[in-house]
């Protein structure tokens, strides 16, 4: 056998490593490029095109769909689309806040239980979210429909008009969102509570005695990384939610996800739908970026993986 020089040997090693990289990573990278990057790029391009006669995008390029998203149409300005946008923001805000309020005591309660029970309690919280979200929304439709005990109660209390039912309504959408996303907040908060340094809490109790101040100064800062992770997991998908407002909201409960989806179904205005999708993407990235910045500043750079 010929003795090869160290240089040639090294070159051959580099070549084989590169070939290895090609065989292992390339198929997946190509797949993701073709079926994820290209479609996303195409969708973004569509947003800047004009709506054709059959709802399919056409040249020339324009900003018309963004103007329509802001309410400017053929018939002058109308607030419909803007209302949908604001409603999406509002629903996201309210449901995230409610989820936080419920998840804090629940996550804390689980940590106060005996250690062998904790995984089971966590599983009990998570299991409902394993059911398909269409089925879960359908369960709430059954509960809130006109003529059900809950609707009759709301009727008797004068909260809703007679024979109206609690669904479809914005209230039903909020309820559905809270129901859907509660586990995503409980899990990271539980992880934060489990690592809680109780000495700090005891010190705070000795010093302040007031439970609210003890919570605010000793507990809250320690659970902040969990809270941030939970907020990302709840708020971002809630903003883009499609199924729940479609089933529980009716026409007046529409959110951005429904506006976007409708443009690809009944209304057939792909550019407008694509513009809405871009808005959703921007919101997603702003949310992720903001959380990361806040998380870094607080030094709690832990990532919670579900």
């Amino acid at each position, binding site marked *: 056998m010929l003795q090869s020089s160290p240089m040639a040997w090294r070159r051959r090693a580099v070549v084989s490593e590169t070939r290895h990289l090609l065989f292992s990573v390339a198929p997946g990278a190509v797949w993701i490029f073709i079926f994820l990057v290209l479609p996303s790029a*195409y969708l973004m391009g*569509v947003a800047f095109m004009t709506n054709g006669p059959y709802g399919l995008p056409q040249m020339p390029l324009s900003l018309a769909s963004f103007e329509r998203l802001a309410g400017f149409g053929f018939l002058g300005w109308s607030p419909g689309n803007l209302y949908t946008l604001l409603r999406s923001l509002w629903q996201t805000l309210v449901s995230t806040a409610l989820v936080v309020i419920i998840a804090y005591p629940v996550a804390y309660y689980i940590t106060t239980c005996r250690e062998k029970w904790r995984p089971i309690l966590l599983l009990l919280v998570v299991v409902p979210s394993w059911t398909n979200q269409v089925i879960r929304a359908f369960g709430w439709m059954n*509960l809130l429909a006109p003529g059900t005990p809950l609707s009759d109660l709301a009727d008797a209390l004068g909260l809703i008009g007679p024979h109206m039912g609690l669904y479809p309504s914005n209230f039903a959408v909020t309820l559905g969102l809270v*129901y859907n996303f509660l586990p995503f907040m409980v899990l990271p908060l539980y992880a934060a509570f489990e690592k809680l340094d109780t000495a700090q809490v005891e010190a705070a109790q000795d010093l302040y005695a007031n439970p609210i101040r003890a919570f605010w100064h000793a507990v809250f800062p320690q659970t902040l990384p969990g809270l941030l992770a939970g907020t990302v997991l709840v708020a971002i998908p809630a903003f883009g939610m499609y199924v729940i407002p479609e089933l529980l909201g009716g026409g007046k409960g529409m959110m951005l996800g429904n506006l976007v989806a409708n443009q690809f179904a009944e209304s057939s205005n792909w550019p407008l739908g694509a513009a809405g999708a871009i808005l959703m993407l921007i919101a997603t990235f702003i949310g992720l970026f903001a959380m990361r910045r806040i998380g870094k500043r607080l030094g709690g750079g832990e990532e919670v993986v579900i």
Partner: protein
Amino acid sequence: MRKRTLTRGLAGIWWVTLFFLYVPLFVIVLFSFNSANSTAIFERFSLAWYRRLFDNEQIINAFGNSLVLAVSSSIVALVIGCLIGYGMYRHRHRKLGWLIVLIYLPIVLPDIVFGISEMAFFVQIHAWTGLLQPGLGTMIIAHVTFQIPFVALIVYSRFVGLDPTLFEAAKDLYASPLKRVVHFMVPTIKPALISAFFLSFTLSIDDFVISFFTAGPESATLPIYIWSAIKKGVTPEINAIATLMIGAVALAAVLSMLFNRQGRR
């Protein structure tokens, strides 16, 4: 004294939350056994809706589609994702940041955005070339795309957890790369492969939005069938079919609990 009221209050909140989480599911199960076609009044216990379920050809077809979609997409995603996971591990010292971003993208993207971008893309490609007609094929492609990152991350983290000297030992033991794969790689990451497969399978079965937008007229899955039945207002059998799906989830929960117990022993 104060501590006790706090604990009691917490327990109260816990039980109310649990009630809130299970009531919608309980109502579905209860009314699936209702003899009357009503979700407000329970008449008599009956299995009539279940009997109708098994005569409904559309539901049987939808169930078959769900299974075919979940199994085939999971297998493809397992192969591709596994290769990426290994590549990411083997070349972790290189600058692969772009790859990580690419891989995380389907996880971060809101599923409605993912669904419609796939749909718009498939429709446009179909208009140009006649390929990629909406149906099971396009659904499998879309599912594989969102399953790949999960498989890759699971496999990658399994490799990271291994002792690096193991790879050297395997190199000494087995001369050919193929033998190394068969006798060393696959057996060592088998748990990761199994859990990645099951995760992909569950993600696929559970998905509605992405399937909905990439489906063709003949390829409705169970969630799509349920969705359109709800939308049309034809719901009597929905409670029964939903109950079966809830039952499957409950079974999975119990199994995972048992597995966890065994794993810890």
